[in-house]
């Protein structure tokens, strides 16, 4: 009889075990459209008030330059609304930025090729596009620590890479222009960057090391080079690339002249979670290359993002694999040691656009997938903080 009691008591205890703690915030959503010919190419995602806002490009009938589409989804990932810009504003850069309740990105006027600063509020209200006089071919943008913007643009007349500081009203402040040097024109490569983004997309980007020192990755000395500038006549430092065949693909400042970077050398990719770059002299990206990140596909976009989990700072490297998944590598920021890995995508191909970390410390991954292997559709995967720990760091429940 005692044995029966024990058995039943055991069963009751097991039955009263608390249910598995399940996060309720993780999701993957694919935003489907029933139109056979619709083709979305998302660029960036930012958190809004009870929503996520997606900046995307669409195809236009009368030009090869991409049009602009905005999509808003709620915090559970359900589609809420979308807004398509007219053909008067085209070719957005891959950076959606937020200050207070306003969202901003840089785009281009199709006739004058002038850069413009576009702003809007959640729900796509108060949309304005302010032309930035004298700045052509916008290539990349970023937010600065004093709530202004950096813009990388290209001047085709004088063959200059131009980095400028722009405030929220569209006024251009500090600016520096650097010649791309003698040799053949790079305008064709830049136009291809806009019109053929799926073919060896060039890694234009810009950002801030400190208040006085900024960087951009653009054409300098006829190569895709990482240029450090304090807005003076000459660059403060240059990590020289090798035309469009080799260079730095993404950068995340860590401390002083220490950076997390990824780079490319023809079809190879390489990773440095912690490397000291010469911000005040000339060096070559070719010297950085040691070994190939063999899992990554050639010419993959690579997105770096800071992420803190359990008070430990990490750097996430997101890239596309040769098997058409998205790989999320996690490295400890202080040591540069590898900490974990997870994948997004199975069966259908997935491609990467952007990452963001929301206010609740959930990672939001933006990209595209090919539904039924042929219809390119936007996807958003939100990985909760709890799932980041389980999936990436592989911790037990």
């Amino acid at each position, binding site marked *: *009889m005692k044995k*029966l*009691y024990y*058995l*039943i*008591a055991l*069963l*009751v205890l*097991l*039955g*009263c075990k*608390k*249910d*598995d703690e*399940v*996060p*309720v*915030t*993780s*999701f*993957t*959503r*694919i*935003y*489907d*459209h*029933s*139109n*056979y*010919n619709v083709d979305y190419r998302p660029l960036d995602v930012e958190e809004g008030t009870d929503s996520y806002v997606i900046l995307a490009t669409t195809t236009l009938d009368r030009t090869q330059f991409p049009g602009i589409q905005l*999509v808003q*989804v709620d915090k559970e*990932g*359900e*589609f809420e609304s*979308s807004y398509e810009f007219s053909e008067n504003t085209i070719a957005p850069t891959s950076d959606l930025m937020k200050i207070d309740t306003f969202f901003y990105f840089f785009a281009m006027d199709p006739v004058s090729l002038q850069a413009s600063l576009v702003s809007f509020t959640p729900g796509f209200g108060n949309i304005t596009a302010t032309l930035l006089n004298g700045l052509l071919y916008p290539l990349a943008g970023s937010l600065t620590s004093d709530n202004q913007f950096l813009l990388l643009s290209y001047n085709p007349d004088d063959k200059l890479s131009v980095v400028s500081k722009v405030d929220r009203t569209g006024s251009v402040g500090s600016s520096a222009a650097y010649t791309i040097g003698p040799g053949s024109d790079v305008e064709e490569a830049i136009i291809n960057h806009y019109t053929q983004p799926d073919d060896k997309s060039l890694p234009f980007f810009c950002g801030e090391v400190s208040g006085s020192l900024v960087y951009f990755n653009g054409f300098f000395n006829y190569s895709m080079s990482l240029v450090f500038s304090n807005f003076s006549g000459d660059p403060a430092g240059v990590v020289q690339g090798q035309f469009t065949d080799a260079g730095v693909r993404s950068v995340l400042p860590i401390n002083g002249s220490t950076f997390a970077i990824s780079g490319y050398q023809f079809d190879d990719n390489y990773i440095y979670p912690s490397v000291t770059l010469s911000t005040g002299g000339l060096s070559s990206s070719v010297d950085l290359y040691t070994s190939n990140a063999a899992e990554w596909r050639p010419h993959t976009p690579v997105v770096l993002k800071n992420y803190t989990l359990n008070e430990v700072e990490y750097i996430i490297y997101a890239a596309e694999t040769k098997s058409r998944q998205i790989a999320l590598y996690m490295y400890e920021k202080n040591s540069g040691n590898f900490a974990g890995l997870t*994948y*997004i*995508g*199975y*069966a*259908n191909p*997935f491609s990467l656009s952007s990452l963001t970390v929301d206010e609740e410390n959930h990672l939001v991954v933006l990209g595209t*997938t090919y*539904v*039924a292997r*042929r*219809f390119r559709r936007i996807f958003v*995967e*939100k*990985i*909760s903080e709890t*799932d980041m720990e389980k999936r990436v760091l592989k911790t037990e429940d």
Partner: protein
Amino acid sequence: MMQKDSLSIRRLLLPGLLLFVMAVAEAQPVKKPKPNKPKYGFLDTQFWLGVKFGTNFANPMAQSQLSGFSPIDYPSDRLTKTYDSYALPGGQAGIEMTFYHRGFSVGLHPMYQRSRYRYTNSLEWNGEQESERFATIYESEQRVDVINVPIFVKYDLIQNGKLRPFVLGGGFYSFLVGAERQVKITQTDYSFGAPQTIDGGTLNLGVKDAFQNYYGWVAGGGASFDYWNIRTVIEITYNQSLNSVTREGTSQNELSSLGDQNDDVHLSHIVGSVSFVFPLRFIDKQFQAL
């Protein structure tokens, strides 16, 4: 809120069962056998142990319809899945431990159980031209493997003789062991002029992370047949989970990549079983088959 309610029900149900079982058990004081014991009196209180196996048919009851797709230009009810009820046979096998006393039995029957169910959903895309049309159908077969631990309270309607019909009721807790999904994709492409049906392949996905332990109630009936030294029990039961067998809020890569997402599914089963059990107490040379 749903999980909290279910947890409360479970916390009441299982201790209640425990008390009931203890009361039944305590109602039987240990007594020395009387010298003039009736011929078959040793069967008034008995432990039975044996094997049990059978088949089951599952009915998935979706409490909410979820999808990995979020449509931009069409209503979300086009993404609704169609479930088939009691369509695919599963199976179970395990051991039966039963304590019997004067018509009442309490049984613990831990079983390895596989449940199978099926659902279908479809998507379609259209352009301006007739040839710009493409459709795809996903047929998903879900298999859920659990260690099912039911506690039965059984009452024999006829307590003497070789044939003893009974009714039973109780509860169960199922510990998830594994979950697999087989997705068969069939596509119809209109771009060739006439519609062409294309086999889009079959995917086998491990989806254990998208499922969880579940619990519920069970009721049924059957009959025992006593021949030789074996009691054969044929039993048909209906059981129903009180919580979802799927985990909410999870995003399993293999599923979400296809745009699939588990609904909040409660499972019910119709279960047919056969047991062969042996008496454990008072076995001596006098025991003969009834």
